[in-house]
């Protein structure tokens, strides 16, 4: 486990915007996530997909940042989906009930196409 600043990249696929998260999701990720979010919604995607496959350590501040994204998405009526979460962080998403408000998909295809369960 090594400390790394998060970097983000935004891809558009099948009408969805995919934000690739590389590195730790903590307080230092705020600016990068904000930038990625603005870039993602600029094309008015049908959904924003968070790719956690290459994400590292996620702390409570990182959870708060994701809650912030979720609030912004709800305000715009854009669903958020996630994939690539490790079992440990999937458990955290469930404990915090983040999983009730964003869909957790097993892979990118299902996340982009919204084939998995939908948020309640």
């Amino acid at each position, binding site marked *: 486990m090594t400390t790394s600043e998060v970097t983000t990249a935004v891809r558009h696929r099948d009408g969805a915007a995919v934000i690739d998260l590389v590195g730790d999701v903590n307080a230092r990720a705020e600016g990068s996530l904000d930038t990625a979010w603005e870039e993602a919604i600029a094309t008015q995607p049908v959904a924003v997909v968070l790719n956690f496959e290459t994400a590292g350590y996620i702390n*409570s501040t990182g959870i708060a940042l994701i809650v912030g994204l979720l*609030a912004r998405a709800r305000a715009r009526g854009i669903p958020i989906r996630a994939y690539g979460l490790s*079992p*440990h962080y999937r458990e955290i998403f469930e404990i915090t009930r983040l999983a009730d408000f964003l869909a957790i998909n097993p892979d990118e295809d299902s996340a982009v196409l919204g084939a998995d369960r939908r948020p309640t």
Partner: protein
Amino acid sequence: MTSLTGSFRRRLLGRSAETRHEPRARTEPVDTPHEEVAPVDIAPNDPLLAFMQSASGAVDVESLELDSPALAALKAAGVKLAVPLVSQGELIGVLNLGPRRSEQEYSSDDRKLLDNLAAQAAPALRVGQLVRQQQAEARTRERFEQELEVARLIQQNFLPKRLPELDGWQVAAYYRPAREVGGDFYDVIPLPHGRLGFVVGDVTDKGVPAALVMAATRSVLRASAQRLVDPGVVLERVNEHLCPDMPAKMFVTCLYGVLDPTTGHFRFANAGHDLPYVKTADGSVELRARGMPLGLMTGMAYEEKETVLAPGDSLLLHSDGVVEAHDPNGEMFGFPRLKDAVARYPGGGELIDRVLTDLREHTGADAEQEDDITMVTLARSSAAYETNGSAPTHQLVEFSVPSAEGNERLALERVSAIVGPLGMDQPRLKRLETAVGEATMNAMEHGNGYRSDQPVMVRVLTEADMVRVQITDLGGVSPERETEVPDIEAKLAGLQRPRGWGLFLIKNMVDEAHETSEGAEHTLELVMHLAEPATDERTRGGNHDDK
């Protein structure tokens, strides 16, 4: 009159045939004016030596013409006939005869008789010489062994007869002299206020001289340690005492440290001795302090350093006989191997046993020990804590983390490295990591306000099938601490701030979490069983492979 010439002591000894020591022979010469003739040496380059070596029989001294000081001496002594004694081609002596009593010349029969006598006497004489030589060598060896025994006795008499028994500490020592007995020594000195002085040293040279210097050093050091507190000052005093009487080309390397067993503080100074190693939770490190060996020159100062031996830490003091032991190819055991051994092995007596095993494997079991080997170990037991009358809790490690953003990673990684080997399953270890990270972050932010001069203390304890991680800040009962129960719907609705998940995560990640405050110290204790407790009713995911 007979003389003998040894192969290594070319000497002719003129002696009267009528002395008490030499029985009169039939060929003995008549009485001479001198009862006893002074010994005559034949120098190695005297031509008489070569002449006698190659002579076929008795030599008429009077008619022999050589530019030889030895021949002149023989003539002056009245020697008439010289019969070479040759064994295996080597001139080992000369039978010298004065004039016959009848004053007649030696006849050819006389000469034949003397030649036969010389032929039989030479081997016997050679045997006698060899026996005498072996006896001399045996006496030399015996004297050497006696000296070694004296050196051993001196050294062993000045080594501690028993080691102290300290609550919470294990003290062990090993000393084995080489056959030729070097100058190693060690000592453990009881000091005022329950402190203990630890000494390990090495005198250059071997045998009795080294043992005597060792004894003197040990005595002066013991006396100085009782009167002086600082290890560096003690070594200064010892150096001043030793310098005036130190034999040429001799000196003493010595490490002296003082342990306070109640706190674990070990203050030390070093007079050019091999650096000790201390094993901590992070591996083994050298304890460095500068200083010249004792006895070389007066006016030396010795740097003092201090370390704290935490519960579970151990210290090894050693002599160069360990690291300088060679394998059959000439490669030394070396400092890196010893340092690695200290890091890998438990402390105390077991460390000594393991190092000795490694050393035997390195040198070969039958190899003769080259130098004295001395090791002294000092191991602090893992601390025991009271836990409401239940099983004792042992402290694995205690460390501090500076209060700075992102440093929770340091805490969780170190705790994970310590707890992982205890056998905690991976999903539970991941939860503990998250809880430690969140608790440290809360302590740095809400307790210490990210003040750089206020670190967060982290202590890891183990008991039976669980670990306890105590995270302490200096914020006391702070109103800044999280009290709100996070509700994601309220957060999404803007009724709660997005943050405030830390304590919630902590309580959901570990089996138990307890907060206590004492004065300024606020501690959050995280309790995590190594395996899922049977009474844990929370629903968790399966046994996943985490990334």
